[in-house]
């Protein structure tokens, strides 16, 4: 119960803090919108029937965009604020402190998702008829949580790098590219597909599309949730090893 309370309060607190940051909220909404606008122009010109496909894909891009760079630098930010040691030393497991941070980041992406869908509707006339609204909402929630969990894994994996934000930023385009947001996976060489299957956003994107067009989204939701849980488990294990090493060598501050 204490863990659940910590997760919930941490998520709410960080969500409010991120909402006050122009970089993490305003830009997170606007920036994917530039890419979505270009995609709308291209699909409207060449393949108008795929505009709904592009609209849904562009909207989920924002969730990943809000998470990747920010999550990559999450621990470094605590370092700059001088709070990393205090958080690591707190009685709660450090993963329960960090997971709400990255979940809040991916939740901010919902703003971007809504803004992109509205932008597509108002400016490009892409009407969004959702066949299964409940399944759609479930798919969105699971995708947001899974991307937040992926962000958690990034955050802990980059703990030893002072410039972790750049590594997180680096992953923005590749995930946009190979998770089927705007480009069908069938267009990529065969060796790319197994990589995309290991990425939770691929399954989240499929689930959202299936729910929107009336297909069966539950299997994809299940896979997305499973991969997200695996990210968290790996993240917790990696974090344990890294914190142990940092304590042993006194390298947490990287000074």
């Amino acid at each position, binding site marked *: 119960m204490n863990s659940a309370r910590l997760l919930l309060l941490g998520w709410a607190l960080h969500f409010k803090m991120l909402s006050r940051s*122009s*970089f993490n909220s*305003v*830009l997170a909404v*606007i*920036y994917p*919108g*530039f*890419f979505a*606008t*270009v*995609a709308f*122009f*291209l*699909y409207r*010109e*060449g*393949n108008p029937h*795929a505009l709904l496909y592009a609209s849904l894909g562009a909207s989920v891009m924002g969730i990943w965009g809000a998470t990747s760079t920010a999550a990559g630098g999450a621990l470094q930010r605590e370092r700059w604020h001088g709070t990393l040691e205090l958080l690591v030393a707190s009685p709660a497991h450090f993963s329960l402190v960090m997971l709400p941070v990255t979940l809040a980041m991916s939740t901010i992406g919902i703003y971007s998702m809504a803004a992109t869908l509205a932008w597509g509707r108002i400016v490009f006339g892409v009407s969004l008829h959702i066949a299964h609204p409940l399944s759609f909402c479930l798919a969105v929630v699971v995708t947001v949580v899974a991307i937040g969990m992926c962000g958690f894994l990034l955050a802990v994996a980059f703990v030893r*790098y*002072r*410039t972790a934000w*750049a*590594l997180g*930023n*680096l992953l*923005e*385009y*590749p995930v*946009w*590219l190979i998770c089927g947001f*705007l*480009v*069908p996976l069938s*267009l*990529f060489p065969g060796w790319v597909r197994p990589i995309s299957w290991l990425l939770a956003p691929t399954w989240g994107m499929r689930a959202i599309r299936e729910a929107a067009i009336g297909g069966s989204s539950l299997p994809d939701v299940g896979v997305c949730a499973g991969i997200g849980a695996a990210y968290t488990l790996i993240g917790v294990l990696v974090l344990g090893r890294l914190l142990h090493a940092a304590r042993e060598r006194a390298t947490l501050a990287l000074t």
Partner: protein
Amino acid sequence: MSGLRIFFIGGAIAYRGLFNWLSPWIFVPTFLVAPIFQILLFVYIGRSAHVRSDSFYVVGNALQYAAIPCVFAMSNTIAGERFQKTLGYILATPAGRLPLFLGRSLPVIVNGIFVSAFAFAVGGAIVGIHVPASAVGSLALVIAVCAASCTGLGLFSAALGLRVRETATLNNIVFGLLLVFCGTNVPLDELPGWMSFASQGMPLTHGIEAARRLAGGQSLGTVGGLIGAEALVGGAYGLLGFGLLRFMEWQSRRLATLETA
């Protein structure tokens, strides 16, 4: 002589000291890898949407990516003085403002050229586009003009950075606007009229068009007007940026508002 020293040596020192993205841990992912993925993203969207050739997206995105090193670096090397608490000292010196500020733009332009040329060469090789050997020199010239032009815009952004607190947000928005407006991925005649009109006053628009024509086999002479227009737009932004910097300096002395943002 003193002005030259401030321009070259002072500019290089300021660039190295204030633009911390030169660390390999930032430089490689941000300047070498990310533009390749941006190119691939739009090449594949183009293939999926069945519009235009791969070459169109390679040229557009390789040149447009110069905006990242140029706008961000210019902003960091001038507005960064404020964050380092050294802006007051800089503005208290008797150094000429022209070499002081413009000297910082030279390394920025060189970096912009490198990033853009690297993205063009590697992105083009991955996707497999063919560029006539005779066009390589002319393309290098266009890349250089585009980098200089973006640096002019960067100077303007840097001046705004003396008043705007979130320069990273501002610069990302500038980058996004260039992505949408300048014909990077969508030809100007496919954009709404007002966007196409606005793009004429933005850096990169003419340079990207010139580079596409050169890659398509046209000669340097036929795109001379476009290159001239690109240089003119970049120069105008540079002048505007320098003027705004001087205005900010004058206003901050008058109202004691140097550190208000």
